[in-house]
């Protein structure tokens, strides 16, 4: 009669994870794995496709251009993001809630709407171009060049700089600064010796995150950049859909993926970024 005992044994909790993992495997892991396998087995076991990335001349040039753009975007995001995050820690709770909503706006503004808006703002005859011509800077080509791409990408990626920075900065006790001032230090020295070292975890996390994410941008460079100055994502798309070089594209994709994941893991170790961003992104205007 042991088979009919009514005691219910709790089912193992990991069973609840099976559907999500299966979905993820089907859409992400298996295709990525297949793409990896394709890149080392076409036509037979070979590393030729990886070797070609470094010898065909094009890939390295594009990689270099992508890295330069990413560095520039990261720098701009940092120069704008740090003061903003700092400002957020200073204002009243109500103002902070508004500033946080503002941060999340690029996060949740439709990708296509945003890029289209940047296109109209920056294009020849658009408001920014007109203004620059009017103040005598001459005819600067913003769309179809790296300038437009950099401006638009910095705006989209700013939340990824501001959010980890804000979480790091809001944990710093300002009384330390006041104490330094009280002991006779100038505001700049107090900031540099006390505040900046304490904020460095958030800074590193933000820098790595923005740099990493800007490596994979596709839509913005495709719409605002020029085809002659394509970035790595466009090269990847072109090799897949136009050249049908699935193995070569697979090798390039693996390279981008590995670089990204290594950098993200590093950022995550420094600042616990992935989950922090997930939480803030889904928390709306909850304040802290």
């Amino acid at each position, binding site marked *: 009669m042991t088979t009919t005992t009514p005691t219910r044994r709790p089912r193992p*909790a*990991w069973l*609840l*994870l099976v*559907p*999500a*993992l299966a*979905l993820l495997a*089907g*859409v*992400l892991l*298996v*295709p*990525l794995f297949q*793409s990896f396998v*394709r890149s080392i087995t076409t036509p037979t076991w070979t590393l030729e496709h990886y070797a070609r990335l470094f010898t065909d001349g094009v890939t390295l040039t594009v990689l270099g251009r992508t890295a330069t753009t990413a560095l520039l975007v990261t720098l701009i995001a940092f120069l*704008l*993001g740090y003061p*903003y995050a700092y*400002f*957020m820690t*200073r*204002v*009243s709770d109500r103002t902070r809630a508004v500033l946080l909503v503002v*941060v999340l706006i*690029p996060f*949740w*503004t*439709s*990708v*296509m*709407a945003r*890029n*289209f*808006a940047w296109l*109209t*703002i920056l294009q020849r005859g*658009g408001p920014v171009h007109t203004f620059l011509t009017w103040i005598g800077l001459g005819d600067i080509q913003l769309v179809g060049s790296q300038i437009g791409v950099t401006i638009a990408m910095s*705006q989209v990626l*700013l939340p990824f700089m501001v959010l980890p920075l804000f979480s790091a900065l809001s944990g710093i006790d*300002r009384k330390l*600064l*006041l104490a330094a001032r009280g002991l006779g230090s100038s505001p700049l020295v107090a900031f540099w010796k006390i505040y900046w070292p304490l904020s460095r975890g958030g800074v590193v996390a933000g820098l790595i995150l923005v740099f990493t*994410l800007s*490596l*994979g941008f*596709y*839509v913005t460079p495709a719409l605002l950049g020029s085809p002659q100055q394509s970035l790595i*994502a466009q090269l*990847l*798309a072109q090799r897949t*859909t136009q050249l049908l070089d699935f193995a070569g*594209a697979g090798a390039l*994709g693996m390279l981008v*993926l590995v670089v990204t994941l290594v950098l993200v893991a590093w950022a995550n170790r420094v600042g616990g970024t*992935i*989950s922090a961003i*997930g939480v803030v992104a*889904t928390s*709306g205007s909850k304040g802290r």
Partner: protein
Amino acid sequence: MSTDTALEPGTETAYVTAGRKGRRRRDRSVDPIPWWQWVVGIAVAIYFILPTLFVIPMSFGGNGSFQFPPKEFSLDLYVNFFSNPKWIGSLGNSLVVAVLASLLATVVGTAAALGLHQLTGRLSQFLRTILMVSMVTPAIVVAVAVYVSFLQWHLVGSIGGYVLAHAAIGVPFVLVSVTSALGGFDAKLLRASASLGATPWRTFLRVTLPLISRGVLTGAVFAFVTSLDEVVIALFLRSPFFQTLPVQMYTAVTVEVDPTIAAASSLVVVTVTLLLLIPLLVRRPKRR
């Protein structure tokens, strides 16, 4: 400070809240916010919202090319959006895909969050990271891999392919918001319910689900919005017979130079904003 607040977890915040008024006033005089920080903060805030500000006025500009400021006020673009089968059809496709994808993501994501909540240790940490990884994987790398694999599985251009891919990228949002809802969940309730004879399923429906419903709703909204807005994977999965709204918008900019995209953009931005307000509105009355 009364002793009962000191006994609670999160004493720090209790102190701050209790002493906020007085402390802040003192802070202001000793440690004022310099005017230039306001200038920088507001300037960066404008940069954050600039494209979003342009989207809506653009949509009333009539059938010129992409121009700002618009020369006239007209509803032509909206009329065109709702009468042209290309636009309204792709909107319909997008909505169907987004509803199905967010349903799937919500079900599997909620299950996974519940499972992870019961698990501890390194394995659960690892599984959580795996489930979150699509948040930082470059969309283009996923898109290219998914495209080639889905070609073999005959999922390119099918509604099923879109739903699976979008559900997978929606899972992290559900996972994060349900996990944070489970944060305040008292596991004793489960034992109480079981001891009263409820099956695990009934316990889930009557005890767990009502308590985490806000998290589930928030996750579902974010998964919906993510799918509605997703463009990179959608560009690869499109077929002449089935494409989503972001893909149509992409074509409108790159190929057709169709100003109707302005109307589409503002519709998407307004819809997404309204959708994101839902969790906030539901949250408010429940706050104690």
